[in-house]
């Protein structure tokens, strides 16, 4: 693709949206990757010949997907309000979550994933606890399980030290300067730090594609930080990858094509495998942005006394 003029970059040639090209120089497009690979790595005098373009396209996309899962750190962020059934529908391009926060009173509060489940499927049963089926032999299911209903109505309890804790609001005794409680928390067994969080909790139902929140979350704003696979909902024109990974992607495509071709000597495959791994390491180090200034800021607290 041709280089952009400054006017194209800043003003998008006067078209809308104005910001269409901002930051685009960091990225190389999928089209460029496939084109460059065909041009530079495929030919009668190259290691790879007689390979279809769709092979290259497939491996280029797979490389971009793999990079998006961890190395690229291309985090997408989506804000949505939780509905009355305490669900947050996962974005259409969601693959995995990074952090889920509640935005309240101008502050982002990171939420904790509940170590217990807060949702469940259920089957309808008769009085004798026999499972009920329809005429086609499929099991009958209620819209919500009891666990779900209790969570939505706010009648379930949690092991977390928030408003849904069974001990929340209960009283203790203050005697001779010491507090005593009639339930197993704090002073008696020590605090369970894993569940000592007063924020609401969530649990992801991957198959149903929703995040289920605890009952005090209806109407609250949620900010979901997540990773996608970089496929941009199948729009090839939008697929791109950071230039720091460009050489790795060529090496990756070369390796996977050669390793799946018949009759390629093992030393060539090993060579391309090492090249691919080394380039991935290099790109990760480059992308990690270890700046002396940032390190200095981090290390400033090293001699601080903990009182």
């Amino acid at each position: 693709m041709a280089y952009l003029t400054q006017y194209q970059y800043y003003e998008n040639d006067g078209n809308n949206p104005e910001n269409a090209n901002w930051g685009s120089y960091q990225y190389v497009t999928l089209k460029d990757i496939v084109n460059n690979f065909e041009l530079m790595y495929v030919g009668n005098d190259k290691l790879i010949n007689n390979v279809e373009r769709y092979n290259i396209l497939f491996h280029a996309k797979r490389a971009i997907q793999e990079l998006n899962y961890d190395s690229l750190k291309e985090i997408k962020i989506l804000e949505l309000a939780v509905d009355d059934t305490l669900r947050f529908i996962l974005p259409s391009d969601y693959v995995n979550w990074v952090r889920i926060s509640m935005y309240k009173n101008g502050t982002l509060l990171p939420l904790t994933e509940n170590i217990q489940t807060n949702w469940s499927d259920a089957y309808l049963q008769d009085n004798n606890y026999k499972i009920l089926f329809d005429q086609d032999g499929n099991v009958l299911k209620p819209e919500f399980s009891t666990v779900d209903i209790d969570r939505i109505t706010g009648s379930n309890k949690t092991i977390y030290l928030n408003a849904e804790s069974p001990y929340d609001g209960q009283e203790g005794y203050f005697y001779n300067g010491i507090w005593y409680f009639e339930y197993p928390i704090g002073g008696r067994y020590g605090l369970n730090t894993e569940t000592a969080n007063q924020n609401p909790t969530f649990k992801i139902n991957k198959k149903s594609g929703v995040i289920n929140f605890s009952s005090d979350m209806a109407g609250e704003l949620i900010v979901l930080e997540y990773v996608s696979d970089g496929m941009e909902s199948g729009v090839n024109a939008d697929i791109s990858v950071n230039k720091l990974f460009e050489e790795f992607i060529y090496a990756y495509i070369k390796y996977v094509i050669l390793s799946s071709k018949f009759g390629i000597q093992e030393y060539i495959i090993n060579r391309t495998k090492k090249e691919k791994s080394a380039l991935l390491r290099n790109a990760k180090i480059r992308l990690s942005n270890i700046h002396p200034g940032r390190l200095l800021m981090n290390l400033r607290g090293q001699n601080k006394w903990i009182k």
Partner: protein
Amino acid sequence: MASIINTVRATVLSIANKNNYGYITPSDFNLYAKQAQLDIFEDYFYQYNNWIVKQNARVSGSGYADIIKGLVEVVDSFSLTSSYTPILNQFDLPNDYYLVNKIYFIPDNTEIERVSQSKILSLNASQLTAPSEMFPAYTLEGNTVTLYPSSTKSVKIQYIRYPKDPNWTYVSLSQGEPVFDQSAADYQDFELPLSDQVNLVNKILQYAGMSIREIPLVQFGQAEESIENTQQG
């Protein structure tokens, strides 16, 4: 430009016409000429492949020793580019095409990839590689090209055509001999380069020799061709 076909015919007649019973009529000559030209034309592609193998084995050179370059130049002299507008996603290839080098959309020059019939269904069903506007594909069935995804955008096709049939034309007989006429409407010279004149003569001699059952003539043509091939590596 000097006519190759007339020189070739004169040479063939000179070698074959022993005691005047090896005479080849113009129509016979044209038939043999067509055969010989097609044979040599096809041979260019096999030579190209052989020389690539040699190049990869480091037994060919560069500069004037770059044999592949010369072969490519000859093949490229048969290259044509035509425009088509698909109707209902399809269009027919030109009748004289030998092989399609590339098909691409205009004006954006997006190349359309040839996909075999055995793969196209799987390709369409694949989430990652399904043909798209950016990476379109086509299949070939008979002479008909089908585009994926469906498109009515204009396309250009760059292809290698067959050489035109050579036709040695004449106007009248003079002392029993037809007189060559290069200005006839149906005149067609050989389209192969001058360097192929020797090969053309050798090939035509073999056909002519078989025609008049003159085995030494066939053997002479074969021997000459063999020597030529040996010299060319």
